[in-house]
């Protein structure tokens, strides 16, 4: 019987991020956790910004203007990064759902690469049209 004061080597959730020298599945898993956290953070941030509509149109407009124009227009870069994690998360999530239904289970690693390449192409198309929209407005 092992005493209670012995060293327990359980890593906890911090171990999820240690994908270095692991398989591609571990990388996909670690990035899925990370992108999920970013998306949840953005959701709450988005709700926080929208909640300013309750105060009034002027308050909301002034907040949105303050983060999208002037010295803070670097938020556009964050928007692109947000789109990146959403496309990554969506593609990997779709692959996992298909694998769990038994579709493509034997080729799950190849599926990861294929789905991510497709998602990055879609991201490129999305960003192109978003840029065109930005230029038009």
């Amino acid at each position, binding site marked *: 019987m*092992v*005493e209670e*004061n*012995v*060293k*327990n*080597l*359980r*890593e*906890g*959730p911090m*171990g*999820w991020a*240690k994908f270095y*020298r*692991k*398989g591609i*599945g*571990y990388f*996909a*898993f670690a990035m*899925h956790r990370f992108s999920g956290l970013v998306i949840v953070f953005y959701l709450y941030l988005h709700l926080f910004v929208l909640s300013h509509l309750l105060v009034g149109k002027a308050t909301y407009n002034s907040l949105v203007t303050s983060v999208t124009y002037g010295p803070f227009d670097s938020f556009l870069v964050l928007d692109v990064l947000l789109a990146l994690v959403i496309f990554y998360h969506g593609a990997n999530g779709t692959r*996992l759902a298909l*694998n*769990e*239904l*038994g579709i493509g*289970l*034997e080729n*799950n*690693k190849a599926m990861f690469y294929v789905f991510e390449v497709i998602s990055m192409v879609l991201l490129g198309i999305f960003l192109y049209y978003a840029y065109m929209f930005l230029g038009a407005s």
Partner: protein
Amino acid sequence: MEELVVEVTRTDEKGNQKLQSFNVPKDKVSTVLEALLYIKENMDPSLSFRYSCRMEICGSCGMEIDGKPHMACSTTIESLKSDKVKVAPMKHYKVIRDLAVDMEGFFGKYKEVKPYIIRDDENGKYESEILQTPAQFDEFIDYSMCIKCGICMAACPIEGSDPDYLGPAPLTAIWRYVADSRDQGAKYRLEVASGPEGTSRCHFVGECTEACPKGVDPSYAIQKLRGSMVKYEFQSLFRRH
């Protein structure tokens, strides 16, 4: 003479850890286990580790070798491609001393899935042999190669964050018996697998499959088990209770 530097993470009975390096002559050893035995016989008899068969059958000498879980007996010095190797106890287990870890938790989870054939026949008396076709045999034979070394449990990141998660080896054992045409315990096993600490906790990282020294594919088995569970749950909607 060429030397191999073996850096061992040692743990005393109070849980204090320290690194200790040993220089082992390369021409005297061919595997990591042999290097550890050389250290024990010639340098430090207090070095503790578990081993038995030395041929990857008993599943005793699992440990972290250069940061990944491996069997020490089948990890050759040549495959390291380095003059230095880091050896540590397997992750996600409690350390008894040095490289020996407490496997009780793992074996407890394994017992929970009843890893043996369950039959409805009374007192195990059968009227005749239970025959299987080669195709039925092929369904489960790969998964019966598991040697219960616990390496997959050390490789799984979910096992590292949720001590109650059944883990790759016990879930693979469930699939091994569910896929066996002789077994009649699927109802019990699928209920265990569909519990909160069953297959739903697996995120298909696949590191268990990467680490398995016997080529068993636990991540594949778990996904197959998921498919069976969906089928079982769907059928239970139309089943009379």
